[in-house]
């Protein structure tokens, strides 16, 4: 929490804000170059396989976002600090965005490989259900005006929703299974050339930095919006 406040303080400097955005954009460009140009062609795959370098990181960021919502919700109910409510909200926003990107990149790949935009495959279906759950979370937030009520309801839903994630995944896996490629089975023997692994690592880093930067900037905006609202209501009184 101290760390979060310190990081938030840092974003007060314009140089930090633009610098971090620039650095994130640069990293993303390097990642794109490595993924689209430098990385070798995969055996038995068309060029569309390269989307995996974006698909896997977005998937990880989506789940990270949902986890942030869970952690924020839990901490809010425990510590009663509105900062955690904002953290939870931003986690869901980023989670929904990255989950959407994961689905879109996956669908583009699937159209090539499976010949269909959509297949009711466990991982896809799980991601879709999660997208609906967290879109619901954001809808729930948007319909409540009272700050305290909103924070509490959202926290309850954030916790219940996250507990549902593994259950949904497990249930859908049981319900019907079509092959989803498992890219990396173990880190010790990844089963692909080091160039590919390194490209994936860089892309992962790029998306991780993007996530962190977006998270902090959104947190700053939300915090400022709260301060403005407080100032306004003081002024009116």
């Amino acid at each position, binding site marked *: 929490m101290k760390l979060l406040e310190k990081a938030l303080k840092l974003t007060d400097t314009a140089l930090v804000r633009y610098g971090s955005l620039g650095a994130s954009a640069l990293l993303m460009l390097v990642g794109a170059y490595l993924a689209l140009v430098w990385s070798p062609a995969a055996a038995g795959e068309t060029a569309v396989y390269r989307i995996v370098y974006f698909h896997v990181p977005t998937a990880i960021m989506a789940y990270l976002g949902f986890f942030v919502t869970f952690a924020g919700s839990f901490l809010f*109910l425990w510590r009663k600090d509105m900062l955690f409510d904002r953290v939870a909200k931003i986690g869901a926003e980023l989670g929904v965005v990255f989950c959407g990107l994961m689905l879109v990149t996956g669908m583009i790949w699937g159209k090539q490989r499976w010949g269909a935009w959509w297949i009711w495959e466990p991982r896809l279906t799980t991601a879709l*259900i999660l997208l*609906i*759950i967290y879109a*619901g979370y954001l*809808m*729930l937030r948007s*319909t*409540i005006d*009272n700050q*305290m*009520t909103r924070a*509490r*309801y959202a*926290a*309850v*839903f954030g*916790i*219940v*929703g996250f*507990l*549902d994630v593994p*259950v*949904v995944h*497990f*249930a*859908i896996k*049981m*319900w019907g299974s079509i092959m989803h490629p498992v890219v990396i089975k173990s880190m010790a023997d990844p089963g692909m050339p080091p160039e590919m692994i390194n490209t994936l690592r860089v892309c992962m880093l790029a998306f991780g930095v993007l996530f962190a930067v977006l998270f902090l900037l959104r947190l700053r905006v939300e915090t400022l919006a709260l301060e403005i609202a407080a100032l306004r209501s003081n002024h009116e009184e």
Partner: protein
Amino acid sequence: MNEILRTAHALLIKDMKTEFRSREFLGHTFMFALLVIVIFNFAFKINPQNTPELASGILWIAFLFAGTLGLGRSFLIEKENDCIQGLGLSPVDRTAIFIAKFLGNLLFLVIIQVMTIPVFIVLYNLNVMEHFTLQTAVFLLGDIGFMTLGTLIAAMSVNLKAREILLPVLLLPLLVPLLIFAASATSILLTGGEPDAYMGRLKLLAAYDVIFFVVSALVFEYIMDEL
């Protein structure tokens, strides 16, 4: 614990009395469940060959929809004359309120099922209750999980501006696993599948119920304090 159960019992009796005095709502919901079943017949072109396969899906969807209607009302009646404030001010454990509402909703759904299933058996000419005990176990475990999360989300949505739409939108995605476990267990019994597969699903349903009942009962007070 005894105290909680006693309070829950008193609250449940109160809810049942108010419900019994009007009785209208139960009838309306039954009509709705019936309609869903009839409409599916036209939507799917049901024939004797595909009935066993489709029956569990039709039944569970009818119950999910009818149950959601009932849930929407369970806290709404408390809003009349600000009863909810009296409930909130009374010095009782919040868990007791949760248990009472949960049991009331569960009872409501079970009554709907008891009324709907015989009609389904006649209309579709398929005895879904052939394995009576096994099928009842599926329905009960499915109902418990459904009404656990349902009671929590219904309490949450009663104060919202768009409550009619938000209750199903928030609740149904959370119930996807439950629907998969329950509908496939019912389906196994109807199509004569593996007993092991049936038991597996029943255990999963029970696990789902336990997890979400404990969590819902724990977090319910945060909802109740804001009602």
